[in-house]
């Protein structure tokens, strides 16, 4: 039985699994890396971009934009794709994936925001893009910035019912409890607006993120520069969304000790749609390549050509072959491996568009950009911080159904 408001608002569950403690040896390692990352952020705000990064006048965008922002946005696509499948198409089978995907999207976009905040030179001015007097509708980055900030808000609102479910009727003060119930009632009525807004805003900024580099036509390698970059980014986001859900479910099932049979049938069903999505992405890429005759760069033996082939092989062709086979799809290890390949392929694509494929005019002067140690620290550290927050939330709020079951059975 579905409650009003769809799967975000309802919690139909398996029997509960015993929750593991917050700290395990693995978590301690992650926490240490997170601390190093925090030190990196501290160093950036104490000493400035010049000391902490290898950015220069030829390469104004580096690891933080290429990975924290571009990859962060792409990999958080699980949120809107699963919301589309489970809440807009109302596929009941997929209800269990909605909340974890929503959580990763929420944290993913928080990570993006943090990445931008650290990367920009005048972080204290970040709110300027929201100021109507400074709106610049001609800028693709303006569109990305507005959509990402709106979407982040939408994600937090979408997550609200999950927190409400945890706390309503469990607070000792009747007045507060009344407010929680009131909020819950409102959320049930309006959640559909935010679900659709989430999908809409995602489609908008996933594509605009690709549009950013269209303006750098003379600098981006022809293998990656294309007038249809916005469409390619959107199509690859469609591919990576479900893949990311499978990938993360595999990790969380392992780390929270959930047996594979709880979720793997649902995930296998999700995998069924990936060949279709991948072939659409691949076709768009291929048509674009033939249209602009960029295949000559594939066979010239250049580094870029090899990176492109690697990206397409790992990210599209191999996982397509796995997803298309029913036997392999139903084996969770293969399914997970294929999903990981799609994720790796999209990460590679974003890095290629934003870092590898960038050929500034006077790069001989400065040499090619390669990230400094501090940049890696901040990026990896931020990922670890997000992982820790995700663990904290999953252990304390009803996100993964297998961990929460029992209190609202059919």
């Amino acid at each position, binding site marked *: *039985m*579905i*409650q*009003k408001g*769809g799967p975000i608002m309802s919690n139909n569950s398996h029997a509960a699994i015993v929750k593991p403690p917050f700290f395990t040896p693995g978590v301690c390692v992650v926490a240490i890396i997170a601390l190093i990352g925090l030190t990196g952020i501290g160093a950036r705000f104490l*000493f*400035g*971009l*010049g000391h902490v990064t290898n*950015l220069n*006048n030829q390469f*104004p*965008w580096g690891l933080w934009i290429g990975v924290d922002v571009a990859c962060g946005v792409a990999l958080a696509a699980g949120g809107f794709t699963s919301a*589309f499948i489970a809440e*807009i*198409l109302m*596929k009941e089978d997929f209800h269990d994936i909605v909340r974890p995907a929503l959580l990763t999207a929420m944290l993913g976009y928080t990570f993006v925001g943090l990445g931008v905040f650290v990367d920009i*030179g*005048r*972080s204290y*001015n*970040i709110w*300027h*893009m929201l*100021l109507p*007097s*400074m709106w*610049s509708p*001609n*800028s*693709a*980055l*303006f*569109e990305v*910035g507005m959509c990402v900030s709106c979407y982040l808000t939408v994600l937090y609102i979408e997550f609200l019912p999950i927190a409400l479910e945890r706390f309503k009727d469990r607070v000792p003060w009747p007045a507060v409890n009344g407010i929680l*119930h009131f909020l819950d009632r409102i959320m*049930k009525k309006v959640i*559909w607006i935010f679900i659709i*807004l989430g*999908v*809409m805003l995602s*489609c*908008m900024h996933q594509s*605009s993120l690709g*549009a*950013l580099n*269209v*303006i*750098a*036509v*003379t*600098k981006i390698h022809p293998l990656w520069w294309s*007038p249809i970059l*916005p*469409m390619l980014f959107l199509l690859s986001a469609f591919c990576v969304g479900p893949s990311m859900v499978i990938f993360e479910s595999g990790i969380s099932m392992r780390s929270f000790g959930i047996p594979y049979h709880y979720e793997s049938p649902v995930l296998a069903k999700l995998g069924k*749609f990936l060949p279709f*999505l991948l072939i659409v992405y691949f076709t768009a890429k291929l048509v674009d390549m033939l249209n602009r005759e960029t295949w000559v760069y594939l066979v010239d033996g250049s580094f870029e050509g090899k990176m492109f082939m690697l990206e397409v092989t790992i990210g599209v062709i191999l996982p397509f072959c796995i997803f298309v086979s029913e036997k392999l799809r139903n084996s969770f290890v293969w399914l997970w491996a294929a999903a990981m390949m799609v994720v790796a392929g999209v990460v590679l694509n974003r890095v290629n568009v934003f870092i590898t494929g960038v050929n500034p*005019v*006077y790069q001989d*002067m400065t040499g090619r950009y390669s990230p400094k140690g501090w940049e890696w620290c901040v990026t990896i550290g931020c990922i670890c911080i997000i992982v820790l927050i995700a663990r904290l939330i999953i252990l304390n709020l009803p996100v993964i159904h297998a961990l929460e079951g029992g209190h609202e059975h059919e």
Partner: protein
Amino acid sequence: MPTRRDFLKGLGATAAVAVTAGAVSVSASGHGEHHGPEIYEESYGVLTDLTKCVGCRQCEWACNEENKLRPSEPVESLEDQSIFDKFRRPDDERYTVVNRYKGKGLGGSDMFVKVQCMHCDYPPCVSACLVGALKKDPWGPVTYDAWKCIGCRYCMQACPWQIPAYEYNNLVTPRVMKCTMCFSRTTTEHEPKPDIKPSNFLGRGLPPQEKGEPSGKAPACVSACPQEAMIFGKRSELLEIAHERIKKHPDRYIDHVLGEHEVGGTAWMYIYNQPFNDIDFPKDMPDESPAALLESIQHGIFKKFASPVMLFGACATLMHVNGFFKHGDKHDTEGGSDHE
């Protein structure tokens, strides 16, 4: 009960939206009308005749003085020829630099090339800036307002001439540094930046400069040049002069004015005796501004906000068809009062 068909239909609909958006973008990019910033028909610019430059670097020195960049350098430092041993670019401490190209000048002499912001007529940096910190003044210069800037450096990524530089080592108030065509010197109505106090905090984004008019004064570098290698004036007149010179001395110049058509035309233009690729100007510059392409794609996709609204409507319809709302009502009547 929604079936797999519905699911595929839904995917199909989404893909259709995406493909349409892509198609719109491509078709829109095909016939790009020239929108771009407002420019006076009689906008100003500078014509640099590189065959006249002797590499005295007076222009560099004058620029640093005028814009208070590296002010401590004595004039004698200009004598130092060893500076030419290294290829230089404008950076966060210099708006303009002169480079030497051995044996590339007339009759095998040395050639000197001054570079600075080209002040494009349809500047990609202005189009890229998400807070409007960069502006094309209708009479010519592209200016920068550090108070608006958030430091995203998209302008640097966008600039096809690779001009804007960033003060990476400035911790608190890093700026994008580039030639302003000596804005405060060449404009009459230059309004001072607003005071920073809490009462006008929100107003700091409001336009600080009215549209200026040229004051008649040339940029510092142009005035400083002893060879008169640069002329400051109306762009249309400069183009006439350039073509006249090329016509008069076909042995002295190649028949190309750099900046006449490149990326939609620039205010700063060059004439020279060899292909410009040889003196490190960017190769393969398109005649259309990259900003025009991107803007037509973006405005094509989001024309009148139609595609997002259509997507919203399609999603709401799908939700309705698939029973998102129906199930809820049923639950309410059957399950009774779980929210009381």
